[in-house]
């Protein structure tokens, strides 16, 4: 069960239990809704974007532990970043969990987000980890609805 403990690390379990920025954001000026039609995961990402900087961000919705921890840590990682930095993080995160990027050898800005690297051993769970990121990306780019394959 070593791969399993790789997936359900203490940090992930902690964010699942106590998700950060898990509420509606009244000051949001960008929002987007994300769906995973296969498993029914759903979330709304609220973004307060000022001068191209993510001033504040939050999320609401329901899904599995990987989904919730990923969304929680995404909001922490993106808060205070510029739009460009947030997009770069999304790109690195996406390539890491889909196995197109080795976070150990290639330079990156992922920091604590590398704990999601284990998700790539569980292909059916990749979409759980990326839904919040896709939705954040959509909110940044004024799309209102995203749906993962």
């Amino acid at each position: 069960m070593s791969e399993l403990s790789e997936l359900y690390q203490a940090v992930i379990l902690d964010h699942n239990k106590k998700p950060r920025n898990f509420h509606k954001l009244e000051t949001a000026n960008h929002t987007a809704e994300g769906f995973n039609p296969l498993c029914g995961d759903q979330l709304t990402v609220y973004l307060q974007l000022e001068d191209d900087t993510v001033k504040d961000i939050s999320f609401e919705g329901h899904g599995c532990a990987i989904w919730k921890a990923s969304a929680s840590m995404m909001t922490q990682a993106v808060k205070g970043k510029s739009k460009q930095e947030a997009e770069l993080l999304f790109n690195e995160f996406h390539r890491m969990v889909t196995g197109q990027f080795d976070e150990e050898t290639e330079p990156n800005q992922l920091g604590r987000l590398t704990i999601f690297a284990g998700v790539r051993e569980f292909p059916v769970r990749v979409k759980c980890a990326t839904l919040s990121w896709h939705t954040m990306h959509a909110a940044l780019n004024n799309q209102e609805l995203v749906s993962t394959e």
Partner: protein
Amino acid sequence: MATLEQLIPIKPKPSKGWDVERIRKDFPVLRQTVNGRPLVYLDNAASSQVPVMVIERGAQYIEQEHSNIHRGVHYLSMKATTAYEGAREKVKRFINARESKECIFVRGATEGINLVMHGYGRKFIGAGDEIIISAMEHHSNIVPWQMLCEEKNARLRVIPMNDAGELLMDEYDALLNEKTKFVAVTHVSNALGTVNPVKEIIERAHKYGVPVLIDGAQSAPHMRVDVQDLDCDFFAFSGHKMFAPTGSGIVYGKAALLEKMNPFQGGGDMIKSVTFEKTIYADLPNKFEAGTPAIASQIGLGAAIDYLSIIGREKAAAYEHELLVYATERLSAIEGVRIIGTAREKIGVLSFVIDDIHPHDIGTILDQAGIAIRAGHHCAQPVMKRFNVPATARASFAFYNTKEEIDTLATAIEQVIEVFG
């Protein structure tokens, strides 16, 4: 909570003498390890496994009999046609249809329901008419009727259910009226395991002269089905849920109804004659079987029916009932586990949720222990909404499962709860 003895509608004969270890030898797929553990396959409601007898029959067809059916005068085509039509005969006996021509080969229950929607619904249902379905339908028995309602400006009505997952028959009575033109209800809920009182549902609809389609995807593999006794007008089921290959399945229809319906798809094999001015359609069942069908799979369905009759359907059903009772006892004893679907009449399916743990996490952790269950909405999103859960975890049983496997499941669920502490 339902009393466990009342869960199965077939009067269970004691399953003494059910040699599950011998039965398991018939299923090669079960002899493997997954993530280092023996495979525990508890996703039978999604798709069941295939016994050697069915595999060999399909292989024999491909090796020795393969050809196109119904059109060759040569030896192989006649062999293929005989085998294919032989499978239809077996289906006829399996569901006790009056005639084999009432058994239309389709890809599965979904295609069967769509065939009836197109052939019957689009011809006979119009603006202002009403179609009744139930609150526990699989998407395959919701979406086609919704599409029809949208096209024809008809109205979809839904029989509600109680908290146990049983249909409210009084509400059904209240929905039936002169505008009702069709009723489509599942025999057994894939998400809850509820066995619906379909005979009564049919009888009440017939008082209004309304035809009834029964979705038998979950019932045909696990209980005796007699379409004449039920007096249903249509009955659809899938081969891959009853120990046959994917791509096999049946929609039964009463001959008189099938005769007056429009064909489903146009093409070869469903015609008597074709000119550019007019096509005369073939007689039943060919009218509904355009193109070359999944011959090997349908022959496999025939072999699966043979297999079920050899092992004894009633004995298998009684044993599956024991498994369900045992699993219900084991899982409901675990603190934090809540069973969704506690109907008095229930077969084969155990849906559950665990406080604060999402079913997908349960599914992933069980998979690491070699246990295959289904996690999600089971293509029954309205059922999830009714029970106010985003998804459930579902263990579903077949006669080759064992009590030891259920013990393995229970232990793994305890581990899940431990991980999430």
